[in-house]
């Protein structure tokens, strides 16, 4: 089914980038302010869903050739992998570590393994939400 809504498409073209940026901001802000992987993931997913609304499924899948089930799978793997990584260092499961590093351009930066875990959460949320929306759609469904 081809949707042809000029106003929606024009708005979406601009808005999608704002939403994606907001999603990324929320994701990184989550470390010590409101935000985090789940919320960031939901916002990112809403951008993708908005694209599906404005265009049709075939067009979007041509430009974004991901299988969103696999995106979710990668996310879970990343999150559980980080959690399990602590086992290798003989500290309790799910332990995280952090440190300050001097990076070029950014200066001294606070990096932590929690961010990798959160990235996994975000990917999972994006994958799951988009998969669910697609499977309600008859043609794109499982």
């Amino acid at each position, binding site marked *: 089914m081809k949707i042809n809504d000029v106003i929606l498409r024009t708005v979406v073209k601009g808005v999608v980038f704002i939403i994606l940026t907001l999603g990324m901001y929320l994701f990184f802000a989550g470390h010590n302010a409101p935000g985090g992987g789940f919320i960031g993931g939901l916002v990112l997913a809403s951008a993708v869903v908005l694209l599906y609304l404005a265009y049709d499924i075939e067009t979007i899948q041509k430009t974004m050739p991901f299988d969103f089930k696999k995106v979710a799978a990668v996310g879970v793997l990343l999150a*559980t992998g980080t959690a399990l990584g*602590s086992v290798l260092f003989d500290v309790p499961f799910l332990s*995280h570590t952090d440190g300050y590093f001097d990076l070029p351009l950014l200066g001294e930066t606070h990096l932590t393994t929690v961010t990798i875990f959160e990235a996994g959460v975000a990917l999972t949320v994006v994958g799951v939400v988009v998969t669910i929306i697609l499977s309600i759609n008859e043609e794109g469904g499982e």
Partner: protein
Amino acid sequence: MSNLLIAPMIIPIMTAIILVFLRDNVRMQRVISLITMGVIILISGFLLVEVKNNGIMRLDFSGWLPPFGILFVGDAFALLLVLVASIVTAACLIYAFSTIGEAHEKMFFYSFVLLLVAGVNGSFLTGDIFNLFVCFEVMLLASYVLVALGGGKRQLRESLKYVLINVVASWMFLVALAYLYGAVGTLNMAHISMRVAEAGQDPVLTTISLVFLIVFSLKAGLLLFFWLPGSYSVPPTSVAALFAALLTKVGMYALIRTFTLMFPNQPDITHTIIGVMAVITLLAGMAGAMGGRDVKTIATYNVIIGVGFIMIGLAIGNEQALMGAVYYLMHDMVAKALLFLCIGMMVYLTGETIVKNMSGLIRNYPLFGWLYFLGLCALVGIPPLSGFIGKVLIGQGAIAGGDYILLIVGFLSSIAVLYSLLRIFLASFFGETIIVMEDEVPIRKGMMGSLVLLAACVIFLGLGANYIMPFVEAAAAVLVDPSIYIDAVMPQGNE
């Protein structure tokens, strides 16, 4: 601290995710899922021996000491159930290999089975009541998918009801959690137990415990089993066997934990109510099992009888009865899986579900017939098979506690089990054979293999009681005396 304790939950999750990437390689999926279950069986066996030798283990996630962090606690009770659940799942997987069909396998069937196992194992091992809720939900979400997967009209209809009932039950779980948190201000099970004991379990706490009783009864099928026959008869055989073996058992595990660890101080109220519920459950299950006309109904009502019988053990509540409950719980997992696989096989071989329309199966499939008979004997409790020891222990407990009504109803239920299953055996296995040699559907090796594996477990649980009893005693010791559990979990001198 032992990071190995997380393995029974995290390994299935990771494997489930890896299987998503192997969607089109069905063979690989089978091999990997079976290997995973094998690894979990080995690990849980190792942990069980460790726990028996060195006492209860615990794992504080990311190093937060109890009562502040989430933790996994491995005691003998939990690990015994993890071990048996993993063995049963492996058997059901082997059965599924040859029966479930390509369509299911491509729809991530094995991933969801592994997620179900992860949820079940997590529920057994967790030492935090909110974490128990989360593990329950992992298990339930996987079961929702499994029950609806590949659904026709009837299957989707029944699974919708199953899902809605469980959603409402989960909501009640959260309500109970909220009240509990408001009342005692902690979620660590050992810490709850301490706080409840300090407060002397006043009426408010007893009421909260009754909300938990309702929630877990719904999940376990204790009295509130109205949803069970419908939803257990629609999914494919291997899934139904998994459900019958695992899902209600998790509810029962939660009940036993709740009323031996957290709220053991008012047995006059709570345990009496459980006893009454168990008796009504048994009576209703007996009526259903004896009156059922098709094999699936009879099998599901046998699940309900099993629930009632184990809960009698909890209601009596002395050491022997609890030992019996633990033993019978393990036996029931294995034997119910065997029963459901046999029933599914009968339907597969004859295409019929009504008992009367089948006949003479034992002439065509002698080994299968005798395996069914073995399962029957185990469920009835004929020595030396697995059901016998559990029944004797619960019976001894009932006599020691003077609960003669529970004793009588419990043993009446064995007769109902005998009647209902023997009726299937006599009507469907003996008599004129209805299948001509040429029309015989061959039994695949995998199907027979899983039945033989489960039958071997049934025999081992009966004959090998000497090896198992020390573990069961260790499990029951913790159930009788929660202070063992509390001492192992809470750091000393830190309230």
